């Protein structure tokens, strides 16, 4: 494995391939972010299928696999597909998803026909054209990489230069229009960027899979940041890394297409994101839900102690506690230990008793519960026998600010709807 890694960074051919694919990955990450934010990812998919006939036409025209001619052909049919989708949506009653499905399959079919015509011809240059289907980074020539590099620098420069109008058009096109930005032109620019990125990417990714490189990095990046610039950078990084890693995987065995491997790495990045992303990731959500449960358990214990003290009992054994409030004994033990640790509870032999801090907390929970019950009856006209269930949950959610507002709105009441005292 180490041998292979050193090989990639010393062998000039391998270096060239890695360089080419990582450039494509980074640029796709940037351009894909805008497709993602404008909810145009399906169109990106249609375009990548639609550049296929363009490649074939470019080859028929030039008679060789000249990268510039192939790219021009790809951009031509790719852009034509965007225009066709737009035209169908504007002038017919078909919906956008139908138009996209029609156009992308139709263009792909034409590409397949053209490819079969080319492979029947006697042109010896045609070998390798098939690799445009699933991508073959090994076929990248030095000229290819040079062309990619120049085009990528241009694309990034355009994105930086037009950052503000692009941002406005993606977020709020009506507002952009109202300050005089020609949104048609910005939208046209964005579709040119998308088509061009796809055109340079298909040699490595293939027409079938190219759209993944536009969509997946952006969709994952959104989970890691709330800033547009941050999203562009992270998305570019995901694209860049999956390009490199995908190429390395694909060369482990001879003659494997690169596209599927890059998509596989993209899938891994997406999975990692969905699992580990802050706030919205699976683990984060689990942690939050655990935290919520623990809060509910602890506060219910505090509340039960408060109810005992209302009856005149301060020191409670576990047995008496469980008679009053059903609870899993493990859960009770775990939480009581935690509360002792926090200084809310103290233990003497078999008896448990709230500390001053614990009493304050317990009174706060009971106050929240009873205030909310009062709010439900006064403001929402709930019947008295309906209020307890809702208040059981809400009591754990009421923040000090909301409590303040409740007190003000209910004018510092002394008792709840069941005529129990509200503790202060």
């Amino acid at each position, binding site marked *: 494995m180490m041998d292979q890694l050193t090989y990639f960074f010393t062998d000039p051919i391998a270096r060239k391939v890695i360089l080419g694919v990582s450039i494509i990955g980074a640029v796709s990450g940037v351009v894909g972010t805008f497709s993602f*934010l404008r*909810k145009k990812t399906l169109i990106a998919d249609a375009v990548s299928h639609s550049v296929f006939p363009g490649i074939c036409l470019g080859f028929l025209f030039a008679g060789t696999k000249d990268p510039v001619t192939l790219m021009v052909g790809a951009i031509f049919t790719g852009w034509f597909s965007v225009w066709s989708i737009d035209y169908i949506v504007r002038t017919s009653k078909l919906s956008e998803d139908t138009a996209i499905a029609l156009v992308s399959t139709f263009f792909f079919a034409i590409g397949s026909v053209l490819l079969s015509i080319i492979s029947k011809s006697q042109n010896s240059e045609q070998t390798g054209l098939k690799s445009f289907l699933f991508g073959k980074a090994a076929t990248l020539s030095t000229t290819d990489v040079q062309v990619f590099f120049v085009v990528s620098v241009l694309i990034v420069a355009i994105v930086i*230069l*037009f950052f*503000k*109008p692009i*941002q*406005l058009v*993606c*977020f*709020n096109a*009506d*507002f952009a*229009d*109202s*300050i*005089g*930005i020609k949104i048609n032109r910005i939208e046209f620019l964005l579709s040119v960027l998308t088509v061009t990125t796809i055109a340079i990417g298909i040699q490595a990714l293939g027409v079938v899979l190219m759209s993944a490189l536009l969509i997946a990095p952006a969709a994952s990046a*959104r989970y890691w*940041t*709330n*800033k*547009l610039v*941050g*999203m562009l950078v992270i998305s570019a990084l995901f694209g860049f890394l999956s390009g490199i890693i995908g190429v390395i995987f694909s060369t482990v065995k001879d003659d494997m297409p690169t596209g599927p491997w890059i998509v596989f790495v993209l899938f891994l990045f997406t999975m990692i994101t969905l699992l580990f992303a802050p706030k919205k990731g699976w683990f984060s959500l689990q942690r939050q839900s655990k935290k919520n449960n623990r809060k509910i358990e602890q506060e219910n214990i505090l509340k039960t102690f408060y109810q005992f003290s209302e009856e005149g009992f301060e020191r409670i054994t576990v047995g008496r506690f469980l008679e009053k409030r059903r609870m899993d004994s493990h859960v009770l033990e775990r939480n009581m230990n935690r509360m002792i640790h926090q200084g809310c509870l103290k233990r003497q032999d078999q008896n448990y008793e709230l500390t001053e801090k614990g009493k304050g907390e317990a009174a706060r929970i009971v106050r929240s519960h009873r205030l909310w019950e009062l709010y439900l009856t006064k403001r929402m006209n709930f019947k008295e026998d309906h209020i307890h269930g809702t208040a059981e949950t809400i009591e754990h959610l009421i923040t000090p600010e909301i409590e303040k507002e409740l007190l003000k709105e209910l004018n510092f009441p002394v008792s709840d709807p069941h005529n129990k005292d509200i503790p202060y």
Partner: protein
Amino acid sequence: MKPKHSIEVHNLSVAYNRIPVLWDIDFELPQGQIIGIVGPNGSGKSTLLKAIMGLIPLSSGFAKIYDKELNNVRDKIAYVPQRESVDWNFPATVEDVVRMGRYKKGKLFSRLSGIDKQLADEAIEKVRLTPYKDRQISQLSGGQQQRVFLARALAQGADLYIMDEPFVGVDVATEKTILDLLITMKNEGKTVVIVHHDLQTVSDSFDYIVLLNTRLIAHGPTREVLTEENLQATYGGQLNLLVKMQHLIKNTDFPIREKGFEDK
């Protein structure tokens, strides 16, 4: 010479999804007042604003602002779209969105100046969102989101503010903040045009009202316009024959104006 009207609309007809939703609307609006464009849901109020802002094609007629073509006075207008018209999951903070109010045509390729940023900060302060400045916009309440839009418009520093349903889905506190702001703006000589669907609330604050229900019912100072008869016409349901014609036009894909017909 100072123009007499803030907005002039002449013979304006608009079709939306091929259904004509505005028929020959004709009015002039004063300056330095709070003006309500009022009508039930589906009466074409928002369409009227979009037509004035040049966001949708007109079937007939024209709209002028300060006696001029829209393109010559854009820097004097701030447009506040409906809150639901954008995706609030967009990666941006309150500050990011309000700073968009300082994006000006012709200055789009340079960085915002320190003064631009200060003006944005002041606008955020005016709508009392300073503590939320760095908050991601999806985490805001509906009322706060509406205030973000308002702050962006304030940051534009315009003379004429055109707002589409700023009171929809906002809490009482936001409603009051917005109303207070509107009155301050009026006292500074600004003109505010608001699309509003509900006469029960906030209409006391309008100085001038346009009543609309696919056709113009009435326009004028609030007290003169709010008559029993006008309200009945506005809110008393659609006109049967008009609805039938709308659908005929839609189903046959008929033009609203004959070719070559020119509005004078």
